[in-house]
């Protein structure tokens, strides 16, 4: 017999859990705090005074804008590529049977399991061998390798829950392949794709390692931040940008979390 009491955690466990969470998140709050400090050379605690001037300074810095625009562009295009290829791959793996299906499934997922540095080195040497100059597009390709994985993983899970007879029913009622995709498949995998796409965007937006190997002269936002830390100049500007990065990546991940959670009811095959 289980009493009500046994379900309640002892005080020690609660404190430990709270300490663990605090250890993970308090440093992020410190980043936010230093975005408002009046001290620009070093991270002095407590900050001598608080100011919002760094927001204005960051706004006026062209290098911030260049890095931000580049990151948004790279993340958008890498996500778009991943959405198309990841969905196609998920459809093939979940809806048909063919020789090597399991292998393909594994190979698609592999890039996210590999350390980024290996993916980076591999891509860099491959690009050099093929005489492809490092550019915006090489960054996009590098990011797409792991963006596809998250889209694929989200889509394949949802595809598996669509009963195969739904697609047959649509064809039976007179819908061709395109109509079936538009009216039956897309509404059923839509939230999974949105969630996968948001995660892919967030991953690409804060990626450092693969980017350092596949970028030419360009700096994406995370790379720019890394460089700023090495050469301090208006240090709190970096913190302002860091806040933006946190917000820009946190919101999509939060959105993805809610979308996939609600998706459980949508995807059921109605059996």
């Amino acid at each position: 017999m289980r009493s009500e009491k046994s379900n309640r955690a002892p005080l020690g466990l609660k404190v430990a859990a709270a300490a663990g969470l605090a250890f993970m998140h308090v440093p992020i709050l410190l980043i936010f705090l230093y975005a408002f400090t009046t001290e620009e050379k070093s991270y002095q605690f407590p900050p001598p005074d608080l100011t919002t001037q760094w927001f204005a300074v960051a706004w006026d810095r062209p290098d911030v804008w260049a890095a931000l625009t580049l990151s948004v562009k790279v993340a958008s295009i890498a996500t778009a590529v991943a959405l198309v290829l990841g969905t196609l791959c998920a459809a093939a793996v979940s809806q048909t049977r063919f020789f090597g299906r399991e292998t393909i499934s594994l190979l698609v997922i592999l890039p996210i399991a590999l350390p980024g540095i290996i993916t980076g080195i591999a891509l860099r040497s491959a690009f050099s061998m093929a005489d492809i100059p490092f550019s915006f597009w090489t960054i996009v390709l590098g990011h797409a390798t792991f963006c596809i994985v998250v889209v694929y993983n989200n889509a394949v899970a949802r595809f598996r829950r669509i009963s195969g007879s739904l697609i047959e029913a649509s064809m039976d009622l007179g819908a061709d392949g395109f109509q079936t995709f538009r009216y039956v498949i897309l509404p059923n995998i839509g939230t999974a794709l949105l969630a996968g796409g948001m995660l892919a965007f967030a991953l690409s937006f804060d990626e450092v390692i693969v980017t350092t190997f596949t970028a030419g002269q360009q700096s994406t936002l995370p790379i720019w931040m890394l460089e700023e830390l090495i050469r301090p100049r208006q240090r709190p500007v970096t913190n302002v940008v860091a806040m933006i990065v946190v917000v820009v990546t946190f919101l999509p991940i939060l959105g993805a979390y809610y979308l996939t959670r609600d998706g459980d009811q949508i995807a059921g095959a109605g059996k």
Partner: protein
Amino acid sequence: MTTAVLFDNVSRYFGAVHAVDRVNLDIAEGEFFAMLGPSGSGKTTCLRLMAGFEQPTGGHIEIFGETAEGVPPYRRSVNTVFQDYALFPHLSILDNVAYGLMVKGGAREERRKAAEDALAMVKLPGYGTRRPGQLSGGQRQRVALARALVNKPKVLLLDEPLGALDLKLREQMQEELKSLQKSLGITFVFVTHDQGEALSMADRIAVFNEGRIQQLGRPEEVYNQPKTRFVADFVGSSNVLSTKLCQRLGLKAAFASLRPEAIALAAPSNGALSLAGTIAGQSFLGATNRVFVDVDGARIAVASPAAHAVPPIGSPVTISFAARDLHPMEDA
């Protein structure tokens, strides 16, 4: 009479598996045709060949005189009621029913009207705004039926549509399906593994086993005169009398079928045949007792009215039956 569906020597192989093996079929327009068999017998593959989800490995299929090979499902004038109903979970019931008209580009108002009429026909008027998840199994089955019929198919294919329903609902739906088919005049092709369902609903039955048709005929023919041991056993558990017993009864055929309900646990009256045996077991089935009688090592099932007392196991007994109830069989 017009031929609705024609199978000319049709085969469908999946690698080494002969799912459908040289099947010949000729379904008449307006007929209620049942394909009966155990799972894996090829009946569902035949249905899928008609729907266009499978293409034949060999042979020729015609639907209302038109060649069906290579024609995709969305260009065939047949519709299917799926075993799991396959209702679109993201659409309302009305949109589910109107789906076929929507993809064909019907006007919105006409679509709505036709879908509502179809829902009324399957006795679900006013259910249009609900979602498939909010309906019971029996209601979903009706929606699946309405969704298929709203397209006015020339042939309606039903893949074990009553399999998931409880007995009472199933019997009710059997009657409704039959009267619906009579009033619409559409050819129904019905797949089932339930011999009672096939016997009570169909105009003709094709009994499938291992990818081939064992027997094709009217329900009474299939029931009373099974051609093979498989049909005798699958359709209502006929007794198959061995060559030895046939000889003893003075029959020329090598094998013969004998229905349990044609046998009495009594001494023969004039003209009847009889065999002596011992009671080997019994089970109570409600209206009847199924009594097993051991005759020289062969086990013969007898359906005895429940009101009659059954002698204890091991007692000697005489069973009797009319000669006309013995049906010679092609093979066993």
